Structures are given as C-alpha cells and as structure tokens.
C-alpha cells in the first residue's frame, strides 16, 4: 500500500514485526501444544521433527512468545484501557456481528471487542507461562509437588484452549473485517477504513478530515 494521503499509519514497523513474532510463535505453540494434548493432533509433531523435538521445542518457543507478547503488552497497554464508550460498544456486539454497524458507538484505535480480546490474551498468557514452567519436566517440574503439577497441567490445557479460541476469533475478525490485515502487514490503513471502523481514532489522527 502506497504511502500516500489516502492512508494513515496504524502500526509502526517494530510493532508489526513483534506482532508477527508473537503470531508465528503462537501458531507453532498451538500446533505443538495440540499435538501433545490430544492424540488426534499427534501427527502435528511431524512439523517439529517428531514427538521428542516437539516436547523439547514447545517450551522454548513459549518463552519467545512470552517475551514478544510482553513487549506487545507494554506498547498496547495504554491503548487498551476500557472506556464507557467501549462498554457501550460491547453492548451492541450482536448488531455488528450481524453486519449492522449503524448503531455502533465510535471506537478509538481499538474497539471494545479488541480490548476484551487483549485482556483474555494477557490473562491466558500469564497462566500459560506460570503453569508451563511448573510442568516443564526437564528443568522445573522436579521442584514442585505432584498436586501442583497436576493443577498446572489442567490450567495449561484450559488456558491454552481459551487462548487458541480467542486467537482464532482474533484471526477471523481480521479476515472478516476486510482490509484489517493490511494494517498489520503494511502498517497503514485507508482513511475510509479508519473512519468506518475506528472513527474516534480516525478523528484523532486526522483532526476530523
């Protein structure tokens, strides 16, 4: 997308780069995690060089994602403060799902839905990291009693499921809302897109024009 007047900057290159690090590591984690979670997904271990490599790599990839995710968290934390408008937006969530955006209140850079997603992801990430360390057999598991490990195993599985579901939703939202992916791919969005989906942000960025 050209860097012309029709577009405005939504994400900086470093934000984009970091997002994709998180995204890629997440995909790898989801695939390897699912492989170890349900036998049906075990063949996914082939992507990682077999079961043993999957077991070895998964926690290290997790660490990369955790670092990348925490950078993302610190840069987007302020932008994800929930406002009354966001709450109102969330109250109309069924309408937007049905394709009717008319009654939606104006959103800032992130709408209420995105902020909920952000919160869910942060919570899951914290749980995954903590529980992941507890069940990381090679280095840490021997430090914990088995009851804690068992609890952590459940926490890890449940929070991972939620995380995957939320990210699936996140990805679908990106596909469903046309041109959104441009923002994360090229950093810029068309002004029309910005006005349509994030009117308040659009105003803030352009002074209303």
């Amino acid at each position, binding site marked *: 997308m050209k860097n012309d007047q029709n577009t405005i900057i939504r994400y900086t290159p470093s934000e984009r780069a970091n997002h994709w690090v998180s995204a890629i590591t997440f995909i790898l984690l989801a695939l390897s995690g699912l492989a170890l979670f349900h036998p049906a997904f075990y063949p996914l271990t082939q992507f990682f060089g077999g079961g043993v490599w999957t077991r*070895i790599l998964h926690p290290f990839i997790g660490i990369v994602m955790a670092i990348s995710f925490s950078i993302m968290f610190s840069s987007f934390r302020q932008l994800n403060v929930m406002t009354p408008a966001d709450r109102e937006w969330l109250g109309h969530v069924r309408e937007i799902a049905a394709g009717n955006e008319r009654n939606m209140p104006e959103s800032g850079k992130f709408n209420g839905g995105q902020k909920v997603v952000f919160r869910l992801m942060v919570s899951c990430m914290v749980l995954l990291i903590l529980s992941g360390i507890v069940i990381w057999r090679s280095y840490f598991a021997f430090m914990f009693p088995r009851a804690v490990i068992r609890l952590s195993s459940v926490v890890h599985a449940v929070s991972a499921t939620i995380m995957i579901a939320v990210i699936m939703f996140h990805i679908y939202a990106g596909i469903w809302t046309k041109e959104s992916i441009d923002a994360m791919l090229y950093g810029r969005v068309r002004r029309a897109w910005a006005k349509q989906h994030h009117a308040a942000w659009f105003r803030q960025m352009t002074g209303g024009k």
Partner: protein
Amino acid sequence: MALQSLDITRRSATTIPSPSQRQTPEVAKLIDISKCIGCKACQVACMEWNDTRDVVGTNHGVLDNPMDLSENSWTVMRYAEVQTDRGLEWLIRKDGCMHCANPGCLKSCPAPGAIVQYSNGIVDFHEENCIGCGYCITGCPFNIPRLSNKDSKVYKCTLCSDRVAVGLEPACVKTCPTGAIVFGTKEDMLHHAEGRIADLKSRGFADAGIYDPKGVGGTHVMYVLQHADRPALYCGLPKDPSIGAMVGLWKGAAKPLASFALAAGALGAFLHYVTKGPNKVSEEIEKEFENEK
C-alpha cells in the same frame, strides 16, 4: 514376539481400539510384607535382569539405598520402624510400579504407543516411543516413573514383560529368598493372599488384609499388609489411590471438550462468514473518500 504386539488392551495416545480378540489370563505379583526381610535381592535381580546399574551413592543414615526409585532402580525397599500395640515392627515395603488396571500414566501419556497395557495386565513403557514429557509422572497415583537424565526417557518396572511373555516369572519374584513375592494369575494370587491373611490373623494381626486398590481399578501388583487398615504405615502407601480429579479433568473431559469447542468455533466462524459476508467499509464512507482519490 510378533503376536505379543497384538495382545494389547490399551495404548497411550491412541484413539482407535487395539486388536483385542485374544484372551490371555491376567497375571499379578503379590508382595507379602509379613514375609519380607528387606534383603534387597529383588533390587539386584531387577538391575541384573534389566541391565541397569544405579549409581554407587552414599549412606543417608538409614538402611534404604538407593534412596528412591530412579531410571536404573525400578524397585526399592522402603524401611519403616513403627511402634504399634505389638511393640516395634519393622515394615519393609518393596516399592515399584503397581501395574494398575486403570493406569494414570497411560492415561496421561501424549505419545502414541509409549505406554501400553497388555491383556495380561502388565503396563509397559516403550521408551522408543517416549518423548520425555513426563506427563506419566504427573499422572501416576503412586509416583513411580522416573525420567532419565541420560536419554530423557521414562523408565519403570516392566513386570519383566519379556520374561512373562515367554512364560517365566519376573526376575524379582524368582529371586525372592523368603517367598515374600509370588507371581501367578491374579485369581490365584488373590487366593494365595487369602491363606496368608488367615495365617496373619491367627498370629494376632486382626487387620491383616490385601492391598488391591479399587480406585485405580485394582492392581497387578498387590500387597499383603499386616495392617491393611493403615497402609500409610508402610512408608506412605496411599490409602485410596486414584488417578485424581485434576488428571481426570486434564486427560478426560478437557480433551474432547476443548477439541470440539475449537472445532465448533472454527465452523461457526466459517458459517458466519458465508452467511453474513465480510465486514467491508460502507458505501457511504467509500463515497465520502472518493473525492480524495
């Protein structure tokens, strides 16, 4: 040997049933603690047969040694000096895999075929399939499997599946000098235990009994206890072991629920997309910005 691979009741991380038409008798090892002198012959026979050697360690102020199960010690004697109403009793328990009918390790294992349960009741680890995640350690109600530092695989008592497969008793059973460990069909072992319990009762052990915990579906390694009412006396033998709610949740409900939830989510998204169409920028706004082009 090839046939043996068919005589499988369960395999870890495998959703399809194993060939299960052959019916082999269920076997069991019975450990009569009232006959055990704690000589550790079973520990040696186990290492000798299985070609493992634990480290030469140090003394820790007790007779136990090696102090715990390890990837090389698949069985250890645990010594408890207990003061009961009969005076001092030295209760010596041979610890090792119990070969549960409903094995927590197998349930927890994510690697297909790394843990199998044969139709004779033996729960065996197949290290070549093991990925070293240690989930079996998490899932075991008796804290038995041990992860090797050398190869990151998990090891435990096989009940000498290689010996049993050719019609021999396990190495520890054969060697036991006092006959505290006996082996046979589970039915015969239960019968043998009855006789032992009657003898113990006649010698004043009113609470003598068998340890074959139902919480794990019964075991293929059973104990005769002088004090069956207090298994904890025997170096913390659990009273009512079971796979546990957490492991049940993790390896039980969570697996299908999560899979279906995710599948449903994906399907829902797809249907939403094809029914409602994409969320594009509205015509009005497109027009508004038309001029700018």
